[in-house]
């Protein structure tokens, strides 16, 4: 039984994650499981060895994730896709997800202090017109019932986003409503 030291605040530090139910042991992974992991190195991760109990869903989830965030041939800059992920995680309350994607947002934007204000002050922090529009849209999408509406589109357009970039915001923010729920409910972060 590993010792868990759960963080009590949002942070950009690297955190661990401990599963509440049994991941598959690495020794039991078959080629079907490795196909589900997509990257073989993910066999070292407790989180992915848990999700690989359903390899087909994990594979499709992982490839959806990678294209939404890593395909930067066009569309929204990576920094702002990560901002949408971090804002969604901050609002839903996923300390682990927020830590990873706040770090990425800082790395790609070079605006570490602004990212930290999102974590410290919450989703109402004033981060400038463009980032405010992305955060507000992400929060509206995360609400249940969904609160995203024409005002969010108008605000994103005023901030300079075209429709393809707005779709990247919608995809990135929506995806973290998937990711947050897995991370929050199948285990917990540890410092």
């Amino acid at each position, binding site marked *: 039984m590993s010792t868990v030291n759960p963080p009590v605040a949002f942070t950009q530090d690297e955190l661990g994650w401990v599963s509440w139910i049994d991941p598959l042991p690495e020794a039991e992974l078959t080629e079907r499981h490795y196909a589900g992991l997509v990257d073989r190195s993910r066999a070292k991760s407790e989180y992915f060895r848990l999700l690989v109990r359903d390899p087909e*869903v994990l594979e499709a989830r992982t490839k959806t994730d990678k*294209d939404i965030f890593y395909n930067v041939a066009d569309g929204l800059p990576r920094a702002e896709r990560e901002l949408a992920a971090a804002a969604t995680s901050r609002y839903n309350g996923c300390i682990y997800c927020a830590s990873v994607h706040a770090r990425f947002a800082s790395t790609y934007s070079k605006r570490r202090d602004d990212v930290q204000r999102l974590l410290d002050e919450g989703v109402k922090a004033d981060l400038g017109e463009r980032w405010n529009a992305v955060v507000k849209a992400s929060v509206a999408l995360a609400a249940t019932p969904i609160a995203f509406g024409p005002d969010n589109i108008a605000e994103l357009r005023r901030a300079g986003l075209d*429709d393809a970039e707005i779709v990247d915001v919608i995809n990135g923010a929506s995806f973290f*409503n998937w990711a947050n729920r897995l991370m929050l*409910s199948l285990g917990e972060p540890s410092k």
Partner: protein
Amino acid sequence: MSTQDIIDTLAGIKPGSALDAIRARRLQARENAQKSYLSLFEPIDASDVSLLERAAVAAFVTGLHGESPVASFYRDKLAASAGGAALLEAIDAEIARGQTSGPYGSFPSGPLSVENTAGLIYRVSAASKPALGARLAAALEHAHLLVFRPRDAASADMKALLDAGWSATGIVTFSQLVAFLSFQVRVVSGLRTLAAATA
């Protein structure tokens, strides 16, 4: 793949439209959102979570998000599932009882405690339990937690599912199902809103 893209269908995106072209720029995401849907609803192995359970949970989860083309689609899917018609009344009643606004819940005790927000701790009604059975009743209670107060999730919630007869693999698939639907319903809503703002 011959199956129609489910997000395009639910969002009303027509071939050749502006949004069709934009979605084509994220082809891997589009195809794998579709594969996620297919692997959850047409799995190669349904031994840990039955097709009926998947349909019932999907109708409940999307119904909790309010009336929408997505909620109608999954309600119809449940109605068309073997054994589904017998569950419709209970699922509709539980959706009505479970309606609230999220996300809410508690943070770990500390500086974030000031952000704790109380809300409905949903439990299945006694009236619906005979129709649903112990496994589905436990699943709906956990699904409600995932939809509205995911930050409240604790290891005890895993134990409740295990005690109700869910396997570890079944819990993973069921959690993916609820989490995937949380994504799908938002992408569809976002794309519909954008399409309407562009028309």
